[in-house]
């Protein structure tokens, strides 16, 4: 399940947020040698875009481990392409319906295994990303990405436009390119089709009640997810019946 972690429900995800900042430290600081404008505390990486209006999409296992994450923010406020406007040929995209995505991470243990076209952790997150857009009325995502991922974006059949040319960044000879991705409802349908996920995968928790733990939320979601994945109607009804018995027995 993809969890939308917002300023309203962030308390529920304290452990996951800490784990995400650790993953980011490992991935960007240790492996790729980034340091410009980053704050590093206790092996955790933060930057100026970890703000109250930031939304983290987290693909979590049923016991709360991170499979993959994305960081999203509205382009109405100062965002990455404002800071790195030399990646954009022309005006920097801005609008209520345009959000920016950064910090795309797949945990090492959930990466693609040989023979797989896409990792499950990625395909789920992609569907969650476009579902989030559909629920929030977001029509486009901007992103500054490593140019080496461009062939994969093209081959996934995403609709997008290039905002500029690849430009070198960092000191390891890498280049990045800014693109704007169509995130309308058709994109959600397309991604569900190519990744073979035909059920709702996004969850946004309301602000937690006092004393509510993420474990409780995950247990409820687990039940819902199991049932949503049963595509055969009769089998699904039988599963619901089983649950009803379970609940009335309790």
């Amino acid at each position: 399940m993809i969890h939308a972690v917002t300023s309203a429900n962030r308390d529920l995800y304290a452990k996951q947020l800490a784990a995400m900042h650790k993953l980011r430290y490992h991935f960007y600081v240790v492996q790729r040698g980034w340091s410009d404008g980053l704050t590093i505390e206790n092996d955790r990486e933060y930057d100026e875009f970890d703000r109250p209006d930031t939304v983290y999409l987290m693909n979590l296992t049923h016991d709360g481990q991170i499979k993959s994450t994305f960081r999203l923010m509205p382009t109405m406020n100062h965002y990455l392409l404002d800071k790195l406007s030399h990646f954009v040929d022309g005006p920097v995209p801005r609008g209520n319906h345009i959000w920016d995505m950064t910090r795309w991470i797949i945990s090492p243990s959930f990466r693609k295994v040989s023979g797989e076209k896409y990792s499950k952790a990625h395909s789920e997150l992609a569907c969650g990303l476009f579902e989030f857009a559909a629920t929030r009325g977001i029509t486009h995502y901007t992103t500054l990405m490593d140019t080496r991922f461009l062939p994969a974006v093209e081959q996934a059949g995403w609709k997008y436009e290039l905002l500029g040319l690849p430009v070198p960044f960092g000191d390891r000879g890498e280049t990045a390119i800014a693109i704007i991705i169509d995130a309308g409802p058709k994109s959600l349908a397309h991604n569900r089709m190519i990744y073979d996920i035909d059920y709702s995968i996004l969850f946004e928790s309301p602000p937690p009640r006092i004393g509510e733990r993420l474990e409780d939320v995950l247990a409820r979601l687990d039940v819902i997810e199991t049932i949503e994945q049963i595509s055969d109607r009769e089998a699904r009804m039988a599963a619901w019946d089983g649950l009803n018995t379970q609940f009335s027995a309790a």
Partner: protein
Amino acid sequence: MMDVISQFISDCRTASTYHELEAKFKHVFRSFGADTGTLSCIGSPANLLNSLKVVGSPDSEFVRTYAENNFIRYDPAAKKSITTLSGFSWDECRFESRNDPSALNVLDVAHDFGYENGFVVPIHSGLGNFSVVTFTGDRLDLNATTRGCLHLMAIYYHVALERLMLIDTAPSKPDLTERQIEVLRWVSAGKTDWEIGRILSISEATVNRHVERAKERIGVRTRAQAIVECLVNGIVSL
């Protein structure tokens, strides 16, 4: 500049033959001052050194010399492309391998063939394939814009080639006549040759001949296999 690239990207998405794609590719890299554009080594990074497949437009004499002398083992650009994520020039390789005579030799031979400088783009595709696209030309001005544009051209050329290769290897529908399809439909419905003959008002031997010809065209030995192939390809349905 972006217009030229956007046009090339849309050409890559619609090209239906290698010939068409290559013509568009040539046209666009020439407008950036490159004389040749070559895609080599499409495959997995693991067996890169065993595969040298050249698509594009380099001098065939140079390609032969390269293969005969097993230059791929010494070529500093080939080596660098495995460990690098973005485009680089032969000049950079020349400097980095300044103490390696066999590496310099490859660049010198290329120079003798008139390839003074090259720009190399390694590509890792989403389908797990790896390739190297090389642009050469003595008028190649490798400023930031040209580098960016060549990088994008290489990516979309690779993706389009990969798409065409996939179409090529996909099994094609067997080409059957109307009568053969009609007969196979009745075969799949469980009718004997004699019964089919009665239904279509032709002889049992003719029915048999239609079935045999259809099996040949589909490339199978038994009737059951022929029916399965036709079902898979949507030629008949149950």
